[in-house]
């Protein structure tokens, strides 16, 4: 978050990619895209292109890491070397390690962890192209991959960021807005339960702006949730059709 005085909102109140402040980027989600994984999904949100795969529940090695009363969720958020402007080294960066943790903690409340004691579930997220808001899109798509793998869940987790650019609270920041804007606030949400499972913020917001941003982000989550359900339904229908 730097505060260069570029204009991110034009005189018509539109953003640099032509969106209104409360408008999501175009989103495309698809479920069951990889043949080897137990569950998988793909998302495009703006220029973000992200794949998620789930393996498990499965045995855990070494065994002393297994938990007697619940499963272990493991999560790797990883960026392809070619996903960003300057080539990224394949070794995990500090940012990737932190995001792997917060994404895992955003997904965990959705899963009935006690259903499969002594097992592990692996969630692998590969960011093929990054365009701002990858952690939210990663949660959205990983949640679909978990559902696709048949993991018992309380609800899908949908995620979306809000933030502040040019004194305006806006939804779903893209790369430039994230870098040049003055605040970014990613939120993950379980709409059926009405609870927040990820919340981060960097930038500067007054209490009032903060509340507005949280609510706008949750509104975005709800709209993304509808697309998630539609993607699952599409796969379910196509399976049923191919079975008939």
């Amino acid at each position, binding site marked *: 978050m730097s505060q260069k005085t570029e204009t991110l909102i034009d005189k018509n109140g539109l953003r640099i990619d032509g969106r209104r402040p409360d408008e999501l980027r175009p989103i495309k989600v698809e479920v069951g895209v990889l043949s080897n994984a137990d569950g998988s999904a793909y998302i495009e949100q703006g220029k973000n292109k992200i794949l998620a795969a789930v393996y498990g529940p499965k045995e855990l090695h070494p065994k002393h890491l297994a938990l007697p009363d619940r499963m272990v969720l493991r999560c790797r958020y990883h960026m392809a070397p070619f996903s960003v402007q300057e080539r990224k080294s394949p070794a995990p960066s*500090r*940012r990737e390690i932190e995001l792997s943790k917060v994404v895992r903690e955003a997904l965990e409340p959705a899963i009935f962890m006690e259903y499969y004691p002594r097992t592990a579930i692996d969630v692998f997220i590969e960011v093929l192209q990054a365009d701002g808001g990858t952690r939210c899109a990663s949660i959205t798509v990983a949640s679909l991959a978990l559902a696709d793998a048949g993991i018992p869940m309380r609800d899908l987790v949908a995620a979306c960021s809000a933030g502040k650019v040019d004194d305006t609270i806006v939804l779903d920041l893209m790369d430039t807005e994230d870098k040049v804007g003055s605040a970014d*606030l990613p939120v993950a949400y379980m709409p059926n339960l009405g609870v927040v499972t990820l919340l*981060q*913020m960097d*930038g500067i917001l007054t209490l009032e702006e903060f509340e507005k941003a949280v609510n706008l982000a949750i509104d975005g989550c709800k709209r993304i949730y509808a697309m998630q359900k539609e993607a699952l339904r599409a796969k379910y229908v196509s399976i049923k059709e191919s079975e008939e």
Partner: protein
Amino acid sequence: MMSIVVRVKQKQIAQLISKGKRLDGRDLYEYRDIKIEQGIIEKAEGSAKVLLGKTEVMVGVKIEVGQPFLDTPNDGVLTVNAELVPLASPTFEPGPPDENSIELARVVDRGIRESKAVDLPKLCIEPGKKVFVLFVDIYVLNHDGNLIDASALAALAALKNTKIFNYEVQDGEIKIKPGYTPLQLQAHPIAITFAKINDKLVVDPWLEEEQVMDARLTITTDDQGRICAVQKGGSGFFTTKQIMEAAQIAVEKAKEIRKKLGWVT
């Protein structure tokens, strides 16, 4: 994994909290005692030790001359690093930083960076070529809960204690001159961490509470009461109401702490 002992303690802690009480006698929104010592590492450009109850964190600031990042050629470089050294807790292992120490460092970093506490452009020596690099090393010596708030306080206290040697640039070479200039901070970002236990919020959780909490929420605010960093942790969740409640308490608590420590800009 929760052992039976932890389950029993969880029940006990939760029951107390539902009555507005805590195992160590504090109120729900009460901090443990804060003790700060500054300048204890004479060989560092800045240093401080913070005791938050029994949680003990030391921070040393070292300054080197280096190159700026390509995308900020006119700014000095601020680097925050955290080590959870194994003498501080039976749960810490020697080895390269794990996700917990990386998260700790990055949350503290965001508070300082977003509040613009350190005036990075002032740390530029020659644009695009030479800048001061500030290494802020967080060293956790005893872990009794709430490492984030203790580390954020210690980092700030160490930065407030930091001095840079005087210098002038002659023909692209840095010439050191006598004397030091203190690093002036522009803001005092204070991190306030909440634990959610049995659907109630408490501030400044100590170790026993952290072991049973559902989730954690850290809200860092600046001197004007604006939020500059937020981090949810743990495998639980929060309601929107809890988040807004926490934000308001965080602003108040940070103001209190700043006042108590005399940290006003």
